[in-house]
């Protein structure tokens, strides 16, 4: 038993040590920076928590958080649903199944930067492919980028296209790793199709679905590359994400102190959200 106890550290320590050694200094540095008002050409001076107080009155923070939350509410459920559907579809046998699986994974490898630029040509309103098809079927030209509502939709569309693949990979791994004997037993008992799915597959998959969704929500808070080239955060600031604002503050305006505090606020928000989620989902993880 004692040997067991030693071994468990061997398994866990490399990851933890690697991460800690590289992350601990930047984290402390960020906290330190967030309490200052460091900018170029200026002496570093401590201003305590005033950066954090400023955040509450910064309309761009509120605006970007609102956008991010709306964005998550729209994209994550659709992506989870589509990813699950694709994963189940991939399990069926049909010719071209292998190619289909590769297609399902591909979007995740597409460079978000290239995708965002590509989106400019695809969503081009005066004669891009999308509006062309829409005109042919009678819907007409949609202002994909010049209208705030549609800009939100076009950004969401890009995200759904790309990140469904992320969830697909995770869900597929889950499906493939389900113990087959339970299925065999159930089918002997006469269960099939929808019932099989509802009472056996879904509950077994729930942990990995949850993991995937949690990851996606976290990543959605950090969406940036996908949006930046396509809309620039516009029209106005209607599609400016929280991370885009942090990026501008930190690396465009070089207000490093404020940017650090914005980052740490995100850390706090997400920690609270995860805590709340864990309370509800503890059963799922059975830890």
């Amino acid at each position, binding site marked *: 038993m004692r040997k067991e106890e030693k071994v468990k550290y061997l398994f866990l320590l490399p990851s933890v040590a690697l991460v800690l050694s590289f992350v601990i200094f930047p984290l402390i540095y960020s906290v330190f920076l967030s309490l200052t008002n460091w900018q170029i050409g*200026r002496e570093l001076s401590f201003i305590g928590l005033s950066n954090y107080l400023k955040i509450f009155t910064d309309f761009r923070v509120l605006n970007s958080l609102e956008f991010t939350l709306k964005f998550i509410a729209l994209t994550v459920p659709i992506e989870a649903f589509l990813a699950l559907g694709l994963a189940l579809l991939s399990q069926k046998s049909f010719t071209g199944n292998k190619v289909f699986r590769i297609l399902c994974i591909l979007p995740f490898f597409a460079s978000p930067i290239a995708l965002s630029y590509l989106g400019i040509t695809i969503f081009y309103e005066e004669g891009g492919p999308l509006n062309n098809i829409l005109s042919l079927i009678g819907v007409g030209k949609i202002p994909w980028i010049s209208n705030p509502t549609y800009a939100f939709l076009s950004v969401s569309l890009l995200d759904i296209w790309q990140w469904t693949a992320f969830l697909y990979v995770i869900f597929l791994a889950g499906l493939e790793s389900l113990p087959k004997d339970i299925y065999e037993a159930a089918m002997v008992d006469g269960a099939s199709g929808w019932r099989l799915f509802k009472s056996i597959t879904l509950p077994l998959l729930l942990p990995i679905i949850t993991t995937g969704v949690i990851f996606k929500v976290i990543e959605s808070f950090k969406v940036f590359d996908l949006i930046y080239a396509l809309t620039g955060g516009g029209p106005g600031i209607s599609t400016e994400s929280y991370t885009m604002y942090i990026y501008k503050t930190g*690396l465009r305006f070089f207000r490093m102190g404020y940017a650090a505090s914005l980052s740490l606020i995100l850390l706090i928000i997400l920690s609270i959200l995860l805590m709340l989620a864990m309370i509800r989902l503890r059963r799922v993880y059975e830890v």
Partner: protein
Amino acid sequence: MKERKISRRDALSTAAKVAIGVVAAGVIAGIGGYYAGSQVAPAKTVTETKTVTAPGTTITVGAATVTEKVTETVTKTVTVTGPLTTPAVRFEGATVTVACMAGGPEGPHSSVLYYFKDEWEKLTGAKLNVIEIPFGELHEKVLTDAITGAGVYDVAKICATSLGDLVVGGYVECIDDYMKDPRFPKWDPAHVPEPVRRCVTWGGKWYGIPNDCDGIYLYYRRDLWEDSYNREEFKTKYGYELPDPPKTWDEVRDCAEFFNGWDWNGDGEPEYGLCQSLKVAAQAWFKYLAVAACYSVLPGPVVDRYHNVFHFDPETMEPRINKPGPIKGLEMLIELKKYGPEAMIGWDIGPSWDFFVTKGKAALTWDWGDIARMAQDPKRSVIKGKLGAAPLPGSYEVWDEENKTWKRFDRPIRCGNILGCDWFYVILKHSKNKEAAYHLCAWLSAPEQLFKTVTVIWGSGVDPGWRIHFPPEISEGWGLGNLKEWVTVGGYDERDAKAFLKAVYEQYFKSDTFLEYLKIPGASELMDSLDIHINEALVGKRSAKDALDACARDWERIVEERGKDQMKKWYQESIGYGLPIKIKPD
């Protein structure tokens, strides 16, 4: 300090060697067939050494055709042709690392470096290392390199917005002394337009070696203007002659309205009056400032509190972005927007240029000098030979903040300006090869190289503006350029070239005032704020006045956060407060 003394002695002895070398070479050249090398028009030497090629092909400069301009201690420019002899100063073994925009061997700004790399390396014995940075991230990379002390870049070709951060942080070298040093290639500061000079200087001192002259000009379809049917119809409808070119924004509005919504090019679809790139986080604020400047900047002999300033009150740092002048500008922009495609709000320059030049579906636009270049490319343009150009329109009325009223003039007052980045070279203080670095930048901005840059190097992205670029016929005899060069070597249509160069000349040298380019630390943040508020007004979310009021409040907050006194001091330094302005050349 010791370094300086040695270098002066060195300079004297090298100058003596040079003088002997020059005389010898001159004799040889004279025997061998004398080229017009002793004239003060360096452009002519370019003609001699040039092989005429079709636009778009790469031209390699062989050793035999390299011209070298050598400056003696006597300020007379002598050009030497033929194989290189001992140059004035060499930097054996040094490597100069230049950070520039990513564009490759044929893209904007980087192509210039690649084109001249071999020539310069042979000239000085140093090595040129070009590091390309994606356009959107240039500012961050250069600043990060300087702040963290990594010190990889020796030279950076930056946008004027970045200068404030770099100067104030102490990251760039002041080049006043280098400019006076006779060992280095000479570029004449008096040959650059005033706005360019303002961009590269800070508090009266020079920090940047100017290169590009990035301005916005009015472009219109000359073929439409020359059509007598259109002229008659316009006169009937509006009661005055179709203005060629439009001289005020009201006239632009009328022209845009006139040409909007009907098929004037026979392709079966209605065309538009104008097109523009109004996307947020892209070019919208440049294009707005182009319109708003003439209503807001009062001309005067000196840069004082109420004349020749735009953004802030230099004494109090009160934002002036929500004064009646800028508001009228924004209202005009909103009005103009009606005569272009609705999608414009989401257009960066790509789709907008495509619309005007490649599709030819807009009658006018106002945009960078690159349009004139793009219009000459038969692979991308349907408007070659149809390009009309003019300096940005002006206004009969300019807001006078001192007397809180509109001041009326009897002719349109034009606000010429540099609005673009005005890409120029700076030498970073942490560089270990400052002299080699300065040599490179000065050499690149010397007349022959600069002329080649705007004509031969098809994708250079560098716009004309120096005295060397203008043919005398469109610049009242002042220019030192050659129209034939622009046509044969640059591949321009002759009428297009004339129209374009005349527009550039008038904009820089015959305007009444100019719009100062905001370079103070925090400029990115201020312009970002302006950008999003303009966008709100353009999509109709707010009225022009509300949008600019919100912008002004934002600017106040930004100034407060960065330290009002500090910002005021920097603002005054950056605009050359108290110094006279000189627009017209001697």
